[in-house]
């Protein structure tokens, strides 16, 4: 992209519309501070990027202060402020770019009259990849953070797409996770739980390891092998076979140990039997106490109170002769509540009788204690018996072998029921007798305590035999049950295997998600690596160029810039002094840092593949000493021109501007003076020739209807011819023009052409023809037009001179 003209209206320092002719090989704008030079640079910057670095940095400091600063303070035009450029694109095609400023400080961009969003078709995208070298930004790069420096330099080197790519991929990873479908989220969650559960199963741990390493095919194969090992051969459906196994294992789950019994080798020695003798003792004691008192009282009263004795007999409806066993005064063994009640009544009248009753009562109560102890002992030896579900499982596991055990279990259970019932009877009877002895209340029960105890003893005495039978059968059955038992661990193993097979789709979907996320991470790493490698490649040549530019500006220096050291995402600038390496930013002087900045920007702006042919340089040597300035004038600019760059130089230094114009006049440098800044904008005046500029002015004015413009075109044609002769002489011979030719016209200076070896003598007639044409229309002394040439005449001479200029451009150094 090469700029040919720039029109600015209402933007920054420009109020009224002005068009700057930039067609010459080098255009110099010289003017004091505040004359509007920087506005030209900013106009180009804003046109290309829609913003300026100065404003971008300013907004960071204070949006309020910088707000509205694009628009000229005096601009009152109804149309929006704008910057427009005529240019040749990369293919050499003439194009127009226009940017209009909107009130909200955004802008409308048009290319050839059509609204566009960006200038990517011109290769223009990133603010830091720019054709602008502005004095106030020279050190920006140096005083950036290394990471920002890395990104900016990458952009300046054309590696910005890779940085953008990396940023986009990183952001895409987050975006991907946020937008993950519900099914995938569910799969991830299930996978996490499944893997955690599988990890509890040693046989499945290798499967987990394979899953976590992303080797799902191998994991599935291993899982299949585990599953096959859990089922019998010959299944049609592995999953169904596993479910059948699981069901079978669940049925074979039994707490067999809970049902075991201590084997009682000898019933006589068993505590439960031993305690039975205590019951007998209690009964004997009760009988003894009551019988002794009754016998004593009977002996005394039988003689003295026969009627009373008879009363007892009648009251109880008992007769000695008929029912001696119920007679309280008989030495009978019977201990029914009724008889005890009669005895109590008979004995209660004497102190001795009362004492006997109390003793009997104590024994009855002791009977309760003995019963409790008896039951406790019984519980100790009676095993836990299987419930109905356990009985079913025992049959499931041991089949027919379980019947003997189950029969002994049933027999034991039945005996326990019998014992339990006897205990209840005994307890009730004990309670009744206790009540009789305490209060004399006659209970309904007519059981004999001695008989009940005897029955209870008989039932309990055989209990150990039942327990032993149970235990013996338990021992016999034990191996068969243990062989068929399934532990909860067995069931869990099958259950986990089934879960893994059933949820394998979740594992696969979750793995796809993980693959994507890992790919994002890997891709970012790849881009980093690739960028770093490319950057090193670019730097290998670019840093050499930077050093060359720096050396050009610093021919002799003991302290010098030493190059860049790129890292993964940063970039260090190094300096060197007497073989000692150090960081550049803190150790070089401001002037040296300006040179480093200038060298970096020059290297980047002139990089191979840059979309820009125009380079705008704003006061680059402002803070440099004379040596650096001379190097800039004589070497840097010449190198840029040699490399085919079109230069726009902005400077406040009159001497520099004059020297540069003089140095490069023969190569088409044109000098403009900016002065008398007013509210309407900068006053820009053309001060020095440029052959291209002269012909461009002819082209611009030759077809004008306004005669004044055509007069100007005529004058420019004449100036072109005379300037051409002088420039050709200097370029061809390498000699300066002698002072005697200063101010001389065609007639005097045409002799110079004879010394030009490259000059085709046939062209002299063309030059003379144009001179003669212009003489007819110019005042002889003042060279002012005296008659007005028409457009056709002007056009034919314009074409002739354009051909001359084209023909001799190689000699002139264009």
């Amino acid at each position: 992209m090469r700029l040919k003209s720039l029109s600015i209206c209402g933007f920054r320092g420009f109020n009224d519309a002005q068009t700057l002719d930039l067609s010459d090989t080098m255009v110099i704008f010289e003017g004091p501070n505040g004359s509007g030079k920087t506005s030209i640079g900013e106009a180009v910057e804003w046109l290309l990027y829609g913003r300026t670095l100065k404003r971008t940095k300013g907004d960071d400091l204070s949006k309020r202060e910088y707000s509205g600063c694009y628009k000229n303070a005096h601009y009152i035009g109804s149309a929006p402020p704008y910057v427009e450029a005529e240019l040749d694109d990369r293919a050499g095609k003439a194009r127009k770019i226009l940017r209009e400023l909107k009130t909200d400080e955004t802008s409308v961009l048009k290319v050839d009259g059509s609204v566009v969003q960006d200038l990517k078709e011109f290769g223009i995208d990133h603010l830091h990849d720019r054709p602008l070298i502005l004095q106030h930004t020279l050190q920006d790069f140096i005083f950036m953070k290394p990471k920002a420096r890395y990104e900016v330099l990458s952009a300046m080197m054309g590696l910005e797409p890779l940085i953008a790519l990396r940023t986009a991929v990183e952001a895409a990873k987050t975006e991907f996770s946020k937008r993950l479908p519900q099914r995938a989220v569910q799969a991830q969650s299930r996978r996490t739980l499944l893997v955690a559960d599988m990890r509890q199963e040693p046989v499945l741990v290798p499967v987990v390891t394979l899953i976590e390493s992303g080797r799902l095919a191998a994991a599935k194969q291993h899982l299949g092998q585990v599953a096959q090992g859990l089922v019998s051969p010959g299944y049609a459906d592995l999953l169904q076979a596993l479910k059948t196994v699981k069901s079978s294992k669940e049925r074979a789950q039994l707490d067999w140990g809970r049902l075991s019994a201590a084997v009682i080798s000898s019933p006589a020695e068993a505590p439960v039997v031993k305690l039975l003798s205590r019951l007998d003792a209690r009964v004997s004691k009760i009988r003894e106490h009551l019988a002794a008192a009754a016998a004593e009282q009977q002996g005394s009263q039988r003689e003295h109170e026969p009627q009373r004795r008879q009363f007892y007999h009648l009251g109880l409806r008992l007769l000695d002769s008929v029912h001696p066993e119920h007679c309280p005064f008989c030495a009978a063994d019977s201990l029914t509540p009724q008889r005890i009640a009669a005895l109590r009544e008979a004995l209660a009248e004497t102190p001795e009788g009362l004492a006997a009753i109390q003793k009997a009562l104590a024994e009855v109560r002791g009977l309760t204690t003995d019963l409790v102890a008896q039951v406790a002992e019984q519980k100790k030896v009676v095993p836990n018996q299987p419930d109905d579900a356990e009985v079913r499982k025992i049959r499931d596991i041991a089949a027919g072998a379980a019947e003997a055990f189950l029969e002994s279990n049933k027999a034991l259970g039945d005996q326990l029921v019998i014992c339990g019932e006897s205990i209840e009877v005994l307890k009730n009877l004990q309670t009744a007798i206790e009540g009789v002895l305490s209060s004399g209340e006659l209970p309904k029960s007519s059981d004999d305590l001695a008989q009940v105890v005897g029955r209870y003893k008989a039932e309990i005495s055989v209990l150990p035999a039942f327990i032993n039978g149970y235990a013996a059968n338990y021992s016999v059955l034990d191996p068969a049950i243990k062989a068929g038992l399934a532990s909860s661990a067995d069931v869990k193993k099958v259950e986990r295997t089934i879960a893994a097979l059933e949820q394998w789709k979740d594992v696969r979907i979750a793995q796809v998600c993980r693959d994507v996320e890992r790919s994002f991470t890997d891709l970012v790493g790849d881009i980093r690596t690739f960028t770093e490698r490319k950057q090193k490649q670019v730097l290998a040549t670019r840093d050499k160029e930077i050093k060359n530019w720096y050396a050009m500006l610093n021919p002799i220096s003991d302290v010098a810039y030493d190059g860049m050291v790129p890292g993964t995402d940063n970039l260090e600038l190094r300096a060197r002094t007497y073989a000692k390496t150090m960081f550049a930013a803190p150790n070089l002087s401001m002037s040296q840092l300006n040179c480093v900045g200038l060298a970096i920007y020059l290297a980047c702006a002139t990089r191979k593949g840059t979309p820009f042919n125009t380079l705008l340089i704003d006061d680059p040597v402002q803070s440099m000493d004379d040596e650096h300035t001379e190097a800039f004038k004589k070497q840097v600019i010449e190198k840029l021109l040699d490399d085919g760059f079109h230069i726009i130089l902005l400077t406040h230094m009159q001497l520099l501007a004059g020297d540069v114009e003089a140095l490069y006049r023969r190569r088409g440098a044109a000098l403009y003076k900016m002065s008398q800044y007013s509210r309407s904008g900068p006053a820009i005046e053309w001060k020095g020739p440029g052959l291209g500029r002269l012909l461009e002015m002819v082209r611009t004015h030759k077809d004008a209807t306004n005669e004044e413009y055509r007069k100007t075109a005529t004058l420019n044609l004449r100036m072109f011819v005379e300037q051409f002769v002088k420039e050709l002489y200097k370029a061809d011979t390498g000699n300066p023009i002698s002072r005697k030719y200063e101010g001389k016209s065609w007639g005097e200076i045409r002799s110079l052409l004879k010394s030009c070896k490259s000059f085709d003598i046939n062209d002299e007639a063309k030059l003379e023809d144009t001179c003669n044409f212009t003489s007819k229309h110019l005042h002889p002394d003042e060279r002012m037009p005296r008659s007005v040439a028409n457009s056709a005449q002007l056009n034919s001479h314009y074409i002739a001179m354009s051909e001359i200029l084209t023909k001799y451009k190689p000699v002139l150094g264009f």
Partner: protein
Amino acid sequence: MNAEEDLIHEMRGEVEDKWRGALTDAYMKVPTAEAIATKALEILSEETDAIEKS
């Protein structure tokens, strides 16, 4: 193909992994996070459907 596309193309040439290759398809010219994420989600959806149907 301009210089920027050349770079991306070259970068993509080094990426052989299936997923990363698929992701790089999304940004041959305009690298936006949304475009890449959308591409990734499309492929995820296709693979999920295939797994569900298998």
